[in-house]
C-alpha cells in the first residue's frame, strides 16, 4: 500500500486512540446524515398515502410499519433526518456565532455595554425551558425559519455568558496589552487575538446545544408549533401518532421519537466526550 494511505491510516489511529466513544458517535452521526441525504432517493415518497395499508405493524416490507394513512413510517423517518439534523446544527451554529460575538464585545468593552448585555442575558435566561421559543413562534407563525429564529434566540445567552467569562480572563493577560500597544484597533485585538483563545469552550457547548436544539424543535413540533404536518419531521410524526398508543399501535410515534432521542444522544455524547478530554 502506498505511503500516503499508510500515513492517513496512522493519523486516524492516533486521533482515535483513547477516544473510542467519541469516534464511534461522530462517525454514526455523520453516517446518519449521509443516510438522510442519500437513502430517500431509493425509498417511497414519504407523503404517499395508502389507506388500505393503514396500521401495518413493523415487518420486512415496512420496517417501521405504516401509520393511520398508510404512509410508510420508516421512509418518513428517514426523510425527516435532513430536516431535523440540519435545523439542529444550524441553530447551534447560529447561536454560537451570534452569542460568541456579543459575549466577546461585551466582555472586552466592559462598562455600560457590558452591564446592559448582562441584564439582557439574565432576562432571556429568566424564561424557563423552551417557553421563550414557544411564545416567539406562537406569535411569529409556523415555519421552519421562525422556529429556527425562536430557538436560536433562547440559546444565544449561553454563548454570551461563556465567551464573556473567557474574555474577562484573557483581558488581564500580557499578550492583550502587547497587542494593544502595537497599535491594533480594539476590533482587531478582540477578534483576531482574543477570540481564538476563548472559542474552545464555545465549540464544545455548541455540540450540547445542538442536542438541545433538536429536542426543542421536535418538542415544539409535537405541540403543533413551528413545523407542522404534512412536513415529515420527527416531532410532527410523534404528535400525529400519539393517539394511536391507546389502541396499541405504538410504531407510529415511538420510532420517530426514538430518532429524536438518538440524534440528541449522539450530539450529547460528543459534547460530553469533548468536555472530558479537555
Amino acid at each position: 500500500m502506498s505511503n500516503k494511505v499508510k500515513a492517513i491510516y496512522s493519523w486516524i489511529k492516533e486521533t482515535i486512540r483513547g477516544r473510542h466513544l467519541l469516534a464511534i458517535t461522530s462517525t454514526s452521526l455523520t453516517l446518519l446524515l449521509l443516510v438522510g441525504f442519500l437513502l430517500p432517493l431509493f425509498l417511497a415518497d414519504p407523503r404517499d398515502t395508502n389507506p388500505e395499508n393503514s396500521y401495518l405493524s413493523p415487518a420486512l416490507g415496512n420496517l417501521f410499519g405504516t401509520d393511520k394513512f398508510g404512509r410508510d413510517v420508516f421512509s418518513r423517518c428517514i426523510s425527516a433526518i435532513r430536516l431535523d439534523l440540519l435545523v439542529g446544527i444550524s441553530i447551534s451554529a447560529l447561536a454560537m456565532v451570534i452569542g460568541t460575538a456579543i459575549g466577546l464585545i461585551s466582555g472586552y468593552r466592559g462598562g455600560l455595554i457590558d452591564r446592559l448585555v448582562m441584564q439582557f442575558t439574565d432576562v432571556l435566561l429568566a424564561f424557563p425551558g423552551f417557553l421563550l421559543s414557544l411564545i416567539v413562534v406562537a406569535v411569529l407563525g409556523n415555519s421552519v425559519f421562525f422556529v429556527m429564529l425562536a430557538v436560536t434566540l433562547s440559546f444565544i445567552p449561553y454563548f454570551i455568558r461563556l465567551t464573556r467569562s473567557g474574555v474577562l480572563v484573557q483581558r488581564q493577560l500580557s499578550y492583550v496589552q502587547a497587542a494593544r500597544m502595537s497599535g491594533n484597533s480594539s476590533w482587531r485585538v478582540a477578534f483576531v487575538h482574543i477570540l481564538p483563545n476563548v472559542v474552545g469552550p464555545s465549540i464544545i457547548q455548541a455540540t450540547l446545544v445542538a442536542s438541545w436544539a433538536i429536542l426543542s424543535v421536535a418538542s415544539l413540533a409535537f405541540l403543533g408549533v413551528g413545523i407542522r404536518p404534512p412536513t415529515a419531521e420527527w416531532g410532527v410524526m410523534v404528535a400525529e401518532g400519539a393517539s394511536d398508543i391507546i389502541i396499541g399501535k405504538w410504531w407510529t410515534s415511538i420510532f420517530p421519537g426514538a430518532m429524536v432521542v438518538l440524534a440528541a444522544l449522539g450530539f450529547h455524547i460528543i459534547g460530553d466526550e469533548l468536555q472530558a478530554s479537555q
Partner: protein
Amino acid sequence: MMRYLLRRAVSTILTAIGMVVVVFFIVRILPGDPAILRAGPYASKESVAEISRQYGLSRPITAQFVDFWSRLLRGDLGTSMRTNVSVTPELLKRLPASLELSFYSLLIAVVVGIPLGVWAAVRQGGKMDRLVRLLAVLGSSTATFWLALVLIYLFFFRLQWFPGPLGRVPVGTTPPRNITGFFTIDGIIARDFSFVAESLWYLALPSFTLAFGLVAPIIKIVRAAMLETLRSDYVRTAFAMGLPRRSVLFVDAFRNALVPITTTLGIVFGYMLGGNIIVENIFSWPGMGRHAYLALQNNDLDVLQGFVIIIGLMYITLNFLIDIIYGLIDPRIKIGAKSPT
C-alpha cells in the same frame, strides 16, 4: 447577609420587570397584525376590526404599555379570546394541579438523583460511576414527549400497572374539600385514603416522565460537587485526623457540596416548569400547562402571555428563594468578612 440579599432582590426585580417587558413586546411588536393573530386566519374583516377595538390594539404602543402595566399590577392578565373569561383566575385555578405534579417529579428526581450522584463520586472511575453517568446522559437526551408515550404504552397498555392518560383521578370521582388543591394532601386531611391512593396512582406515570429528565442534571451536579469537595483540603484533614469515613463523607464532603447543588436545583426546577406543558397535554392533566396548550391551538395570545408571565415569575421567585437559602447555608455569606483577631 443583608447586603447580599438586597443586591439579589434588586437584581431579581429588574429581571422580573425585564421579562415581563420582553413578553409584552413579543406579543405585540413582532410582525403580524396582532388583531389578525387573535382573530385567527378565518375571521372576517369586521370581526378583526371589532377585536382591534375591544383589545385596544390599534392604539399607540406606549398607551398599550401603560395600560398593560396598570392592569398587571392589579393582577389582571387580560381576557381569554376563546372563553371570554379573565385569564388570571383561570390560570391560577389550575396552578395546584401543576404544582402537585411538579412537586412529585422533583421529589422522585431528588430522592433518586442525589444518592446516585454521591455514589458515583465516591466510587469515581468504577462501574457504578460509569453507569450513573450513562443514566445522566440518557436523561438529558430523552425527549419528554417520547418518554411519556413509551411509559404509557408499556405500563398502561401492555402491563396495565398504571392508569391511562386521563387526568388526575378516575372519571366521576369527587375530590375532597379543596384546601390546598393538592389531591394527596387534601385527601389526607379529609381522611379519604383511597382517594389519596388513587391520586398517587394517577400521578405515577406523569411524574416519572418528568423526573427522568430532572434526574440527569441533578446527578451531574451532585457528582461534580462531591468530587470537588472530596478533593478539598478539609476532607483530607478530616481523614488525616482519623474521623470515621461515613462522617467525613456526610458532614464534610456532602454538606459543603450542598452549596452548588442548591443553586443548580433552581435551574433544574425551572427547566421542568417548561416541560409541564408537554406532559400535561399528553396525560390530560388539568393544570396550567394544558390550559396553555389549548390556548396555543387557538391562538389565544392573552392566555399564552399570562402563562409565560406567571411561570416566568414563579421561576424568578424560586431562584430568589434559592439565593436566600444559599445565604443561610454558607456561613461565608451569612456572617461575612473576617472579624479582627
